[in-house]
């Protein structure tokens, strides 16, 4: 019955074509198949005609036929460049690329499909997909490792802070003479203990901050903030160090200039930049703090901290933002710090939708630019 219903007479030319050809009805019944396809799969015509098209599909491709291929044909009237795995009579997989069109012929809706065998191309696709999987796994492994590192750092920092606070507290008690009077030499020694304890505490706080940022445990409270206010609030914290080194500084931030930022975090970034500029600038040098709209970008504002310090070699400029890096320079002895400040500052700036970048000329000075959304 089916045979009467469909069996289109095949043009003999199709048997000579270098690719498979098959016609089937909406219910999957195969009406025609050319010799190339039958030979590719090792079937005789009678074994395929009037059978369901699923017969010649590998199981995965049968599901794909039902969930994707047939719906595409039904809804679009055609399907182009569909990858399918055919199943030969002897059970081997044969990869093909299918182009198909569904149309009405003699009162029946029929799909005609051309099946192009893939041999070399499939190898390339497999190699590409393998490479993609390896890359994805490597990325996932690296992300896992980084997260583990952040968690470890966060935990360790907490563990270290507790005894450090105890040290600080007991030194204070000794200095206050709670356990009896102390000599001037002892007082000086205790002062050194306190300074070291505070230094260590700062380093640990830096590490904890970085770990928090990396594990995404930081919330940003973005508000419209005057950049001039921020500079004026931050400068007094660093002025003693500036004065000790005898540096000059000037501030040029327009009063109306506003950014969308988290006040506390912006102050932290600015303090870090000012502290670096002070550290790395020789006595008698100068700092320049400047705010401006970004040319051609009306939605962005910038705050720049420039110095006349030792500068950073061009090839190391980006490295200063990597955690735990401090650029060594022949012009300066290694300066105290974790090398985390700029990494944290950049993460914070980016967390507020902005960025932190640097320009520098060795021996002339550096300028760090905080870019933020306009408030």
């Amino acid at each position, binding site marked *: 019955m089916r045979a009467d219903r469909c069996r289109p007479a095949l043009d003999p030319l199709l048997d000579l074509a270098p690719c498979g050809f098959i016609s089937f009805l*909406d*219910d*999957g019944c195969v009406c025609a198949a050319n010799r190339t396809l039958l030979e590719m799969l090792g079937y005789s015509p009678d074994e395929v005609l009037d059978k*369901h098209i*699923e017969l010649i599909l*590998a*199981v*995965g*491709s*049968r*599901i*794909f036929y*039902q*969930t*994707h291929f*047939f*719906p*595409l044909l*039904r*809804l*679009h*009237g*055609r399907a*182009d*460049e*569909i*990858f*399918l*795995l055919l199943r030969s009579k002897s059970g081997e997989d044969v990869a093909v*690329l299918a182009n198909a069109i*569904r*149309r*009405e012929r003699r009162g029946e*809706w029929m799909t005609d499909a051309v099946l192009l065998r893939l041999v070399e191309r499939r190898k390339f*696709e497999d190699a*590409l*997909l393998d490479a993609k999987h390896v890359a994805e796994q490597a990325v996932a492994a690296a992300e896992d490792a980084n997260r583990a590192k952040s968690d470890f750092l966060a935990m360790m920092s907490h563990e270290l802070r507790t005894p450090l606070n105890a040290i600080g507290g007991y030194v204070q008690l000794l200095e206050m003479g709670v356990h009896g009077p102390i000599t001037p030499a002892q007082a000086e020694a205790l002062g050194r203990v306190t300074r070291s304890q505070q230094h260590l505490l700062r380093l640990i706080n830096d590490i904890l901050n970085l770990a928090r940022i990396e594990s995404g445990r930081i919330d940003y409270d973005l508000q419209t903030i005057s950049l001039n206010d921020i500079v004026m609030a931050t400068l007094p914290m660093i002025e003693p160090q500036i004065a000790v080194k005898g540096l000059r500084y000037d501030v040029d931030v327009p009063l109306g200039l506003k950014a969308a930022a988290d006040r506390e975090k912006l102050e932290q970034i600015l303090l870090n930049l000012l502290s670096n500029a002070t550290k790395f600038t020789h006595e008698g040098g100068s700092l320049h703090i400047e705010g401006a709209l970004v040319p051609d970008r009306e939605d962005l504002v910038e705050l720049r901290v420039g110095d006349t310090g030792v500068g950073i070699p061009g090839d190391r400029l980006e490295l200063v933002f990597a955690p735990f890096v401090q650029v060594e320079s022949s012009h300066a002895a290694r300066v105290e710090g974790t090398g985390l400040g700029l990494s944290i500052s950049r993460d914070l700036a980016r967390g507020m939708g902005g960025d932190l970048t640097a320009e520098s000329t060795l021996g002339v000075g550096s300028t760090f630019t905080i870019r933020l959304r306009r408030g």
Partner: protein
Amino acid sequence: MDSPVLSRNNVKVFGRGTQPMLFAHGFGCDQNMWRFVTPAFADDYRIVLFDYVGSGKSELAAYDLERYATLNGYASDVLDVSHALELQNVIFVGHSVSSMVGVLAANREPGLFERLILIGPSPRYINDAPAYVGGFERSDIEGLLETMEKNYIGWANFLAPVIMKNPDHPELTSELVTSFCSTDPVVARRFAEATFFADNRSDLAAVEVPSLIMQCSDDMIAPAAVGEYVSRELRGSTLRHLRATGHCPHMSHPKETVAVMREYLRSPVDGAQSVARIR
């Protein structure tokens, strides 16, 4: 009516009736798959169509890997859409995997649904020897994932927009449309895994809403034995065998599909519900 869910799930509502028929598409496609059957119900019902987040023209930005890792996330979409439209006495129509999505939704909020119409349901696609035959081995599903991956690779134009030259819809000729089957490759794989690695057998017994099981002939995705299993487990269910072959009768044999659905909808709901109440 202006809930964000409506744009998130690309919800479409039409029809002249009041009782809602909520159509949930299956894996691999979107709400367009219903267009051959919905006109038959538009005079008597309020037709509600939607795309699951990640499918069709839903908002991909709303996709959440965690939420949609299991079919429960898809059931949440069904409930979200129902709440956003304040639907009541819903007739839920689910194709393929959406049958189980409907079962999960009905178990979470039985009072929302009047009936479930399940087209080609399967609570578990993978065999669980010796007692349960789902029709597939794990390796078969891996084969599907490989075929999908090859089709979502860059140079196949599977995902590309196509010029519509649809002879049975001349009014749509030459319309530039995005492939109805196009979904993001990551989303599609996740949906495939959520579908074919699911085991919802234990959810069937809890269903209180009466249901119709539409079982196709020669359906390799949901074989006859699976349909019978579902009808045994799903109390208050009616099993109907279709002459339609394959897995998508609403696309391949819309007339028979509509006729069977109509006949079921004409049957009194009370009889079926009392079955549920007696338990």
